[in-house]
């Protein structure tokens, strides 16, 4: 986080003095369809999903999400959540829909955040969280139509993890993932498409002097899925598996609450 330095103040003053009338609203640059900017997205094949919720559990383990010690469902934090719908009628059925954060291209949560604690990472096409800036007003939670966000109503507890001192730095990391911060109470959190895994893959690719390849990065939910129902990739890469699948299933693929205009990036292949 950069503080307003004197240099920036003077620069701003100079610009302001030079162009008094032309205050141009610089809209954030449209996500250019170039190879250098990525648009990470996810495709979930609902024909394959069996509702085992391994993705949910893997996500919680990967991202140091506190285990809900209380019986209250309203204290639970889900980054990925499997929604259930009972189909009544002549052929009763159960439908499952795993719902991570949609990482919308037009995110309503980012628009309303008063401090910029949730923000759009234009480089990767993700909506990320800054827990140190979050004031816990929960306005983003009101704005998200998918209810994909969770608030920390209490200090997270990890009864399963080794809480001995220095455990986080031990070989097993004491049950914590050292790449992911543990959030304090009072802040909002949500799925970030395992940005830490993306950064690790980027660093590795840079070290090897190459571009990131499709398949280099797999968020925890994608890697864990028993039925391999989830695909993760870059929409800006026409050769990526997700782009090819989207083209193949273009006639039936859907997104949640499409008419809202949020342009979510989680696509679903419906059951037959």
């Amino acid at each position, binding site marked *: 986080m950069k503080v*307003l330095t004197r240099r*920036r103040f003077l620069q701003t003053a100079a610009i302001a003095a030079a162009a008094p009338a032309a205050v141009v609203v610089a809209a954030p640059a449209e996500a250019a369809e170039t190879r250098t900017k990525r648009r990470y997205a996810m495709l979930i094949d609902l024909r394959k999903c069996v509702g085992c919720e391994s993705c949910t559990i893997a996500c919680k383990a990967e991202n140091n999400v506190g285990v809900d010690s209380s019986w209250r469902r309203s204290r639970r934090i889900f980054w990925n959540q499997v929604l259930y719908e009972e189909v009544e009628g002549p052929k009763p059925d159960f439908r499952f829909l795993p719902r991570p954060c949609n990482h919308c291209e037009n995110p309503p949560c980012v628009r309303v955040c008063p401090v910029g604690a949730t923000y*759009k990472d234009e480089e990767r096409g993700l909506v990320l969280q800054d827990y140190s800036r979050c004031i816990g007003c929960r306005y983003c939670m009101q704005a998200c139509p998918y209810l994909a966000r969770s608030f920390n*109503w209490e200090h997270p507890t990890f009864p399963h993890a080794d809480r001995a001192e220095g455990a986080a730095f031990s070989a097993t990391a004491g049950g914590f993932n050292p790449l992911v911060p543990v959030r304090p*109470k009072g802040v909002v959190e949500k799925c970030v498409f395992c940005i830490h895994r993306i950064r690790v893959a980027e660093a590795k690719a840079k070290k090897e002097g190459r571009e990131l390849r499709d398949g280099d990065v797999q968020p925890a939910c994608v890697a864990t899925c028993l039925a391999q129902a989830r695909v993760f990739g870059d929409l800006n890469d026409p050769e990526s598996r997700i782009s090819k699948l989207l083209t193949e299933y273009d006639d039936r693929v859907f997104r949640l609450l499409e008419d809202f205009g949020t342009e979510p990036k989680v696509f679903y292949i419906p059951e037959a």
Partner: protein
Amino acid sequence: MATMDGALLRPIARSGWGFYLLFGLLLAAFAALAVLYARLYVEGHQVTGLGNESATWGITVANIVHLIAISHVGIAISAVVRLLDIRQMKYFARIAEMITIVALPTAVLNIAMDVGRPERFIVNAFWFGRWQSPMVWSMTVITVYFTASAIYLYLALRRDLALCAEKVSQRRWLYKLLALGYTDTEQERRTHERVLWWLALIILPIMVSVHSVYGMIFGVTAAKAGWYNPLQAPYFVLGAIVSGFAALILIAALLAKVFGWRDYMAPLAFRRLGIFLGFVTFLYIYFYTSEIIVGMYGFPKAENDVAHSIVLGRFSWLFWPNVFVGYLLPFALLLVVFVSRTWGRILSLTPVIIAAALLLVATWIGRFLIVVPTYFEPRLPYQIQPYSPTAFEWSVTLLSYAFAATFFVVLLKLIPALEFPQGPAPELRKGLTLRLPFQEVSPGVKNAIVALTVLLGTSLIAQGLYAAVTGPDRPEGGASAMWVIGLLILLTLPLSLCLIRAKPAAASIEGAPEELSPPAPYERNP
């Protein structure tokens, strides 16, 4: 004059056992609030009834909206008195301003109790504020409104503080200090009247914007059915006028009863307030009815479900009694007061007070019904948990009113709640109050100070807005601080105009600033 002075100074000069008892109770309540808040801070919001797949904003947010609404009445009455020259309401003005000064910090206290990170919300919203967020608009306008109201109250008070320095023996040092060299000359009175006239005019749109912005916080949230509505801004402002006037009637009636101020706050004046309240209540009922009808007819399923849940579903047990006893009954009472020849002639305060009390509670419940029902009609198949505010949550929400009452009682003790009458100037001994060295300057210096203030303030605002609008979507910090500080600097203008006296040059006109025109009506001898 002696009896009038006695009546006006009664709360300041004497403290009976009743006061000590009340103040003791209030302090105990305040201490209880502090303890509860500490627990909330340490344990987190798990002690409330809110939840992730449930209501995430609850009675505390409804309370915030309610308190901000009540805070409107200050400038509403002051503007009516000063701009429209409705002398009859004169004695309500300062009480209304005090309500504003007390309600706004209580609202901020409630905000502090609602956000997850109270230790950083003010600093972060101030420094990293995003201009696109309605919450930052609310931070800006509340800061400006509170500061402007405080400055307005102070400048209107200044003469009375100087008079208190003369007449009241306790805390004389405080009044001497606060009056800051007021000399009660004809010139000074005129300057104050002019500045206050313009300040009242400027604060009026700020007041409208404060609650409009709160309406916008809900109105722009398309994700929540029932909130998304372009008319939330005027709807909230109407509700604010209802709440504010209801609160004023109740508090003023109570003070008039306790301190025997019936001569100054005549039943006729209360009747007028009541009639105005009835009119605004009618408008509010009109808006509310149209919301319900459109919601019930609405086709977006979620919108329909929310309206349905309020009118016929899980909230109907609260909605219908609120409509009948909370809105329609008070409106009927006030209509009768207005219309009936027999009943209206009874200049009794009782129907007006009952109506005001009912409306104050009804608007609180109305805000609850705006905030909470939408959570139970999600657009995706979630299992929404019921929201039942815990005793803890009720306690902190209601005890915040104890904070407000404590603050109000302290203000009552310190400053005269009614205006002293004005005789021909000057009525004060010269040199009675403390005067600081910068307060006597040459006209050129005073004009320079004024010009500098305007320049600095406007340039900071422009800079801040420019930096915000052209900067990154995620602010690096400082832009919002610039525009807020710019606004606050501009608000010191009334202070410098009134507090700093230009020493009259030998042959030139007194250094009253010429840019204040047209001349405003000022107090004549009563």
